[in-house]
Each structure stands twice: as structure tokens, then as C-alpha cells.
């Protein structure tokens, strides 16, 4: 049994069977990639994991507890953080404030009416946020308006915000989509570094095979809403079924 | 039974007004993505078109009638509308009598022009601004229009009669086999309902069967894609705004004889029409129309004495109570679709 167990999950939108019968087990402290052609149901699966969608059938267990029927913030409090395809950050706030919010969420829970004590005087939170920014090379930008940062920095900030909550599972939804090669490589290095430094499980959905094969320890190939193969990267590359369904020239090259 | 039919009939005219305003609001919201708080003001302008035409036609010149004297013994001054002077008393009188239906012709170009000016001059600049800004700027515009009307027409309601031919009432009771005089329905209200039905049908037919309407409907569903097809959607949306303004204006013109127009009628109807739109489901045209009639009829039932004696004052708030209940049960409204204004 892994940290994340998906059993027989199915999801239908009207006449479209987005997910057929998905079984997936992610082992703790591994990087698990989910790949597949467009419309394979990758995003639907991800949304089922974080509570944005509720699957019609099946079960999703995180660390022995079911996530089904819980709201996204409850699932996040269980220890699952999510990075979006386009970075979702608090654009109106500074980098420092962006970093402090997950720290508060971690310490004070989903809601706390602390309307009197000032943020400035909360040294515990400040130190945590500072340490995290230091760690992620964001410290120099701490007073910057986060909306005015480059896309790469926004991505870095978003990942930092997720990590500040010390999640056990980090979900990444095409983290390098729309990035230039250099930024993509930076992101790969960043994720490798994160993996090295902490005990964390990463599930990554990705189009870019370069990213997948640089990071993943295990790969699940999804096609038409069902898992085709699940294996280590070396075997996926040469797998005829996968080649046929999806990889084509990308793997051959 | 007769009482129920009577209340349904009574609800139809108010429901028609709600439906017409809500239809325009939904068209504007669906096409332009703008919440127009000045839409009630368009309804009011329509009603005042009827008032103005009536006043214009009644402009009179004075002549002295030497054969008669007033109570002071001076020769009597007689006021004759110019129009009677020009067309002769019979035709002239008929024209004045029919001022409200005539105002329809008079108001259509005015309302379309007002709509164009509003869209090109103001609303256009707010497409990319937050919804809050759109609400606020149109709210400001609504105040300006209402105050201008108040400045020139005064604060009191102005009676605007329907043609004499429609002054009476129709006895539905006798026709349907109930006792005579149990279900009496004024002709003008019947006409209002029929008129509203024609307009609503016309708008739907226009959207359904013309290429123009098809593009607009496609634009309502997915603006960006239609824009990518190289169709100039903006120009069509301006025309839609003019159309919505004309619909609201016509609703106002025809409503003038039912309720004497005053400067705050726009605001009064606007709030209720918003409730109608929300209940019907934001972005759904059939929803707006259905909810308009539904709430109009509900309101008229609540104003029955039998019901008011159980819950006093319920007629004042029944629409809001119904709206809250419906929204709690169906947050998207009666016919609202997933994904419209979800965030």
C-alpha cells in the first residue's frame, strides 16, 4: 500500500467517460509521473485527488484516509498540496505576504479570527517565511508585488508556498507548461533539489518527456481515461503499447 | 377557482414587465458580460417617451371664444391642441387619444439611440474592468438619468391614459361560465400581456432564426472562439445593446397607462428584475422570462385579501422570500447552467 491509493475511480461528464477505471498506487517518497495524450483524463484525475471533483465510483485513500467528500481545503490540511498549470499565487500581495499565508494556514488551521495582533509582530511566522524564501532563492524579492514577477519566479513562489506547509504529497499539474527551455531546466533542478532535501512524495502530470524522464521514478500512462501501463521509466520508453498510444516520435528521438 | 384565475391574470401584466426587463438584462449580461444597473432607467425612459409624446400632442394654443364667457364675465379662453387645429378636431383628437400606442413608433429610434450612446460612450470602456466597477458606473448612470427626469418632469407620477377604446374591462367570468363580474380584466392589461408576448417571441425568433442571432448566441456561449473566427462580435453586441434598450423602453411605454410614470419607477423595477434574473438563472433567456411571469403571478397571489389576512404584508416581500428559498435550494437558479458566473 502506498501513500496514495486510487481504486476503481470513474468519472463521467454527461455522455463522456472522462475516467474509466483508474487504479493507481503511489509509494511514499517517490516521484510518480502521470502521462498521456490530450484528453486522457490526467487533469480530471488530479481534480478528483484534491476534492475539486468527486468521482462517480471508486475510492481515493491518502495515508489510509479517504479524501472523497472532503473540500479542497480539508484535503490540503491532510497534507496534499497542489501546484497549478498557470501559477496560482496571491497577485495583489507581496512575496513575503504570499509566503506567510501558508505558514499561518499550517499553524492556525483553516480559520482563525486573529484580527488584533499585527502580522509584523508575529516573529514565528516571519521567521518561517524568511527561511523558506531563503531556501527557495526568493529572499531578495520579498517586497516585490508578486503579480509583477517573471513566470519562472511565480512558479518558484508557488512551489515555495506549497512546501511551506510541509506537505507529504505534492501534486504538480504540468509545472513547465509554456516555459522556455532554460526555465524548464531550472524547474527540473529545483524539483530534484526539493526531492533530495526532504521526505516528500511528488505526483507530476507532464507533457514534456524531458521533464518526465529526468524526474520520475515511476510512470503511469493514461489513455482514454484508463491506465495503460505502469512501470519504471526505462521500461516505459520502449514499451510498444505506450509508443503506439502516445509517445511516438518523442521517445524515438 | 375564479379568484385563482383572476390572480393569475393580474400577475400577467406585472410579470410581463419583469420578463421584458429581465430579458434585456440577460441579453446584455450574456453578450457583453456587463451587469447593467441602468437597465431600469431605460424602462423609465421608455415610459417617459410616452409621457412626452402625450404632452407634445397636447400642446395647445389659446383662442378667445366671444360667444361664451367665464365666471368673471370675460370672454372665455379656449385651449385647442395644435394638432386638432392642423388635422381637424376629429382626427386630431384621435391622435391625442392614441398617444401611447403612437409612442411606440416614437420611442423605438430614441431607445435604440440611447442604447447605442450608452454602449459606445460608456459601457464599452468597462468590458475589461471588474464587475464591481461595471455595477458602480451603471449605478451612477442610473442615478443621473433618474435625477434628470425628476428635474424636468417633477417628482409626482404623471397620468398617461390609454386610448379610450381600451379603457373598459373585459368580463372573463361571463365568458368562462362563472358569474358575471367575478373576473374582470382591463383591456389595456390584456394588450400589455399580448404585446409582451409578441416582443418576447420576436426576440427569441430573432435569436433563433437569423444568422445575426445565431452569431450572438454563439458569442453568448463562447465569446473568444467566435472572436477568433474573424467575426466582428463587438459590433453585433452594440446592436444587441440597442435591442435590449428598445425592449426595456417599449416595456416602459406600454406600462405608462397601467402605472403613472414617476422618476423612481426604473429603480423599483430594476431591483425586482435583478431578482428575476437571479431566480431564472443568470444568462438564461428562457429562465428570465419564466421567472418574470412566475414571480409576477406569485406577487399577485400574495396580495389577495385571504392571504394577507393570514400573513399581513406578505405581498410586499413575497418575491424576495421566494428568491431566497429558490436560491438556497437551487443556487444556480431555475434554468441556470453550470459555469455561468460561477466565480
Amino acid at each position: 500500500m502506498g501513500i496514495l491509493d486510487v481504486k476503481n475511480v470513474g468519472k463521467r461528464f454527461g455522455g463522456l467517460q472522462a475516467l474509466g477505471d483508474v487504479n493507481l498506487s503511489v509509494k511514499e517518497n517517490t516521484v510518480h509521473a502521470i502521462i498521456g495524450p490530450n484528453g486522457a483524463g490526467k487533469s480530471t484525475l488530479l481534480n478528483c485527488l484534491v476534492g475539486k471533483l468527486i468521482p462517480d465510483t471508486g475510492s481515493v485513500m491518502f495515508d489510509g484516509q479517504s479524501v472523497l467528500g472532503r473540500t479542497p481545503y480539508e484535503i490540503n490540511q491532510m497534507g496534499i498540496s497542489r501546484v497549478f498549470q498557470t501559477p496560482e499565487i496571491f497577485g495583489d500581495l507581496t512575496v513575503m505576504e504570499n509566503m506567510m499565508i501558508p505558514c499561518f494556514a499550517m499553524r492556525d488551521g483553516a480559520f482563525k479570527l486573529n484580527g488584533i495582533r499585527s502580522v509584523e509582530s508575529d516573529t514565528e511566522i516571519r521567521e518561517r517565511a524568511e527561511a523558506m524564501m531563503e531556501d527557495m532563492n526568493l529572499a531578495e524579492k520579498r517586497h516585490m508585488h508578486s503579480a509583477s514577477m517573471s513566470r519562472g519566479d511565480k512558479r518558484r513562489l508557488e512551489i515555495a508556498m506549497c512546501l511551506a506547509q510541509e506537505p507529504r504529497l505534492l501534486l504538480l499539474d504540468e509545472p513547465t507548461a509554456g516555459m522556455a527551455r532554460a526555465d524548464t531546466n531550472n524547474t527540473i533542478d529545483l524539483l530534484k533539489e526539493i526531492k533530495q532535501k526532504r521526505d516528500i512524495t511528488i505526483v507530476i502530470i507532464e507533457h514534456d518527456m524531458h521533464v518526465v524522464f529526468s524526474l520520475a521514478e515511476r510512470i503511469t500512462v493514461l489513455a482514454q481515461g484508463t491506465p495503460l501501463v505502469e512501470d519504471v521509466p526505462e521500461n516505459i520508453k520502449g514499451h510498444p503499447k505506450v509508443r503506439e498510444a502516445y509517445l511516438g516520435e518523442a521517445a524515438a528521438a | 377557482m375564479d379568484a385563482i384565475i383572476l390572480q393569475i391574470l393580474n400577475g400577467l401584466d406585472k410579470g410581463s414587465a419583469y420578463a421584458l426587463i429581465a430579458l434585456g438584462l440577460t441579453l446584455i449580461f450574456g453578450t457583453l458580460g456587463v451587469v447593467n444597473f441602468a437597465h431600469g432607467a431605460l424602462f423609465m425612459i421608455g415610459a417617459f417617451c410616452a409621457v412626452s409624446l402625450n404632452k407634445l400632442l397636447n400642446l395647445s394654443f389659446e383662442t378667445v371664444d366671444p360667444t361664451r364667457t367665464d365666471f368673471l364675465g370675460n370672454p372665455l379662453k379656449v385651449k385647442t391642441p395644435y394638432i386638432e387645429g392642423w388635422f381637424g378636431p376629429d382626427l386630431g383628437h384621435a391622435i391625442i387619444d392614441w398617444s401611447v400606442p403612437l409612442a411606440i413608433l416614437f420611442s423605438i429610434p430614441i431607445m435604440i439611440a440611447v442604447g447605442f450612446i450608452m454602449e459606445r460612450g460608456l459601457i464599452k470602456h468597462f468590458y475589461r474592468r471588474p464587475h464591481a466597477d461595471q455595477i458602480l458606473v451603471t449605478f451612477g448612470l442610473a442615478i443621473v438619468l433618474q435625477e434628470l427626469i425628476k428635474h424636468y418632469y417633477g417628482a409626482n407620477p404623471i397620468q398617461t391614459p390609454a386610448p379610450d377604446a381600451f379603457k373598459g374591462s373585459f368580463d372573463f367570468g361571463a365568458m368562462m361560465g362563472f358569474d358575471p363580474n367575478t373576473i374582470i380584466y382591463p383591456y389595456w392589461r390584456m394588450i400589455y400581456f399580448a404585446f409582451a408576448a409578441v416582443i418576447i417571441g420576436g426576440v427569441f425568433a430573432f435569436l433563433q432564426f437569423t444568422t445575426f442571432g445565431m452569431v450572438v448566441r454563439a458569442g453568448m456561449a463562447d465569446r473568444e472562439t467566435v472572436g477568433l473566427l474573424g467575426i466582428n462580435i463587438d459590433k453585433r453586441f452594440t446592436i444587441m445593446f440597442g435591442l435590449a434598450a428598445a425592449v426595456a423602453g417599449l416595456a416602459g411605454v406600454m406600462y405608462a397607462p397601467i402605472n403613472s410614470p414617476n422618476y423612481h419607477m426604473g429603480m423599483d423595477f430594476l431591483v425586482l428584475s435583478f431578482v428575476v434574473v437571479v431566480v431564472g438563472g443568470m444568462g438564461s433567456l428562457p429562465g428570465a422570462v419564466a421567472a418574470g411571469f412566475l414571480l409576477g403571478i406569485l406577487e399577485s397571489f400574495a396580495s389577495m385579501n385571504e392571504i394577507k389576512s393570514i400573513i399581513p404584508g406578505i405581498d410586499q416581500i413575497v418575491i424576495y422570500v421566494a428568491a431566497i428559498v429558490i436560491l438556497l435550494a437551487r443556487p444556480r437558479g431555475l434554468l441556470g447552467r453550470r459555469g455561468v458566473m460561477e466565480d
Partner: protein
Amino acid sequence: MLGLNKKDFTLLLIVAALVVFAPFILNPFPADSAMAQFNAGYPDLMQRFVIFGIFAIGFNILFGLTGYLSFGHAAFLGVGSYSAVWMFKLLSMNIVPAIILSVIVSGLFAMLIGYISLRRTGIYFSILTLAFAEMSFRLAYSVLTPITNGETGLQLTLDDPRILGETATATGSIPVTNFFGIEMRATEVMNVGGWSFQFNNGYYMCAIMLLLAFYLAIRIFRSPFGMMLRAVKSNQQRMNYTGLNTKPYTLAAFVISGMYAGLAGGLMASMDPLAGAERMQWTASGEVVLMTILGGAGTLIGPVLGAGFIKYFENIFSKINEQVLHSWFHALPDGIENAVVWVLEHFVGSGWHLTLGLLFMLVVTFLPGGLVEGGQRLGRLLRRKDAEKKTATQSTPAE
């Protein structure tokens, strides 16, 4: 100081100085001079400044921080007024229990309305609050006449029980509102030269409340709670995926701003013990929206400035009539004078609402950040000019 950083404390001091010395500041012209009509240092007007200031500060906590545009906040103000008047009728003329009750009742009312309205966001939310406010208005105007006295409005009478106070004074009149014996309507007049300055107890009561309300607002703005509210405005999705439940945050903001409105309503009734349904009309809600936006939504000082600005000009504009306009422009040739007066006449006197509507449109269109942003822009412009001058003077001797 007081748990505020230096900048915020200075701001608080400035506001404190403004309200304490308002009777002087708002009375710059001698009483018998022609300019006296621009004076605003009268008790009832100054009371209105600060009461609407409180109302706007509270509204800003909701709108400025979370971005939820409520069109129904006047309902809470009205509820506050009714509660206070009932306290004067039943308990005593002391304003303390009255104000406490107003705040509590409007808080509860806000919780009910907020709980339902906050199920939706954006336009839906605005429309729902609008519908609720209109419903509250109708309830107060006709349905709940036994509680609100309908059209006439709720007033004190000589047969009210007032169990802790007196039903009527020794002279047989209705007792006046007081704060442990200090009468709210009492006014001290100080005549200095041609000036006549008025110091009203009620005004200073309101002023103290304003300062407390402002201080609390600063604390909320600078607190983690305030930061969360700004985060709600910025990105609700990220909030949810950061393990934060946005609902209680927005509801808390809604209730707090409703309580501010209740406080304003309670104070209004404490200054003049009557309450009418027209206070709850949605145009009244629109007015507080305008005050907040005109001053600068989301800024601390903005709502106070906006409230003062609008109430001041309402007072001045309403006083101006055709004769006054003619006297101003009589130097112009007759035709032009008449034309100018004809145009301006739309905007003054009872035309004030027209001015208000136009102002609304202009501010939203050209200055969405309000007076505060306008001031900042002006400041930047001046600094830039200054800098240009400096570089110009510096470069001359170098040549």
C-alpha cells in the same frame, strides 16, 4: 505605540487631530461673512461626518479587503437605529445600552444575511444583498409596522415605559439622550471675534467612537485576519488549496462591517432619537459605496475622507439655489449668466443627487483608487517635477 507601527500611529494621530479640532477647522469663516455658508462646523453636520465615517470604515473592511461589493449595508444601519430607539423607549435614555444593542442586533442580522448571500460571489452576491436590503426596507416600511411604526418612523413618546429611566421629565417633556447624565444635544458655544465655534457633546461622543472604530480597523488591516481577507480578494482558489476555508473569513468580515453599520445607526439614533425606513433604502447603501470608493477602497484613510467629502458637499450644494448662482455670476453678460446659471442649477439644491451620480461615474471611470490614489498621483507628479528642476539646476553650473 498602541500596537501600531509608526506610520499607522501617525495616521491615527492625524485623524484624531482632525476630529478633535473639527469645530475650528470646519468653521473658517466669520459667522456674519458672505462665506459663512461654506462653514460646516454645526453639531448635526459634524455628527453626520463622523457617523458616516464609521459606516464607511466598516464597509471598507468588507469591500476594500475582500472585494465583496455589498449593496445592502444600509439595512444594518437601519436595524441599528431601530434597536437604539427601542432601547430608549423601553430601558432608559442612556446611549450605552442602546448602542450595545444596535451593534449586537445588526451583527446578528448581518450574520443571517451574510450566511445566505455569501453562498455566491461576484455579481450574484451584490444582487442578493441588494434584494435583502430592499426586502428589509419593505419590512420596515410596511410589514413590520408594529415594530418600526411604518412610514412615520419610530419615535419616542410620553408613554414609553423607560423602566430604568423616567417616562417624562419634570416639565412633562420627553427626556433627552445622555451618556450617564451628559446630555448629547448640549452645545457649548465659543465666540472669538466674528467667529462662533460650537462644541457639542454628541459630536464628541461620536468622535470618540470614530477614533475607536478607526483604531480597530487599523488593527484588523494589519492583522493576519486582514491579510487573509486581502488574500480572498486576490485568489480564492489558492486560498482553498492552501488549506484555508474562505467562507468563515468572508462571513466574519461581513458581520464586522455590519456591526460597524449598526454602531453608526445606533449613534445616529442617539443624536436624534428617531428611526425611519428610508435609512435602509438601497440608494442609502449606494451612498456608502460611493463614500468608500471616492475616498479609496482598501485604504485606511480613504473611507473617512470620502464620507467627509460627500457629506460636506451635500450640505453646501443643497444650500445653493438660483439666486445664489445669479449673485455669483452677475458680472457676466446677461445671456452668458443665464446660460451658466441654467447649467449649474441642475447640480445644486435638490439637484445634489445628480451631482452625486455624476461624481460616482467620474470616480469609477477615471480614479478607481479614489482620492487617496489621486493624492498619490499628484504627489508623484510633483516629486518628478521637483526632480526635473533639480537636475536642471544642477546641470547648468556644470556647463
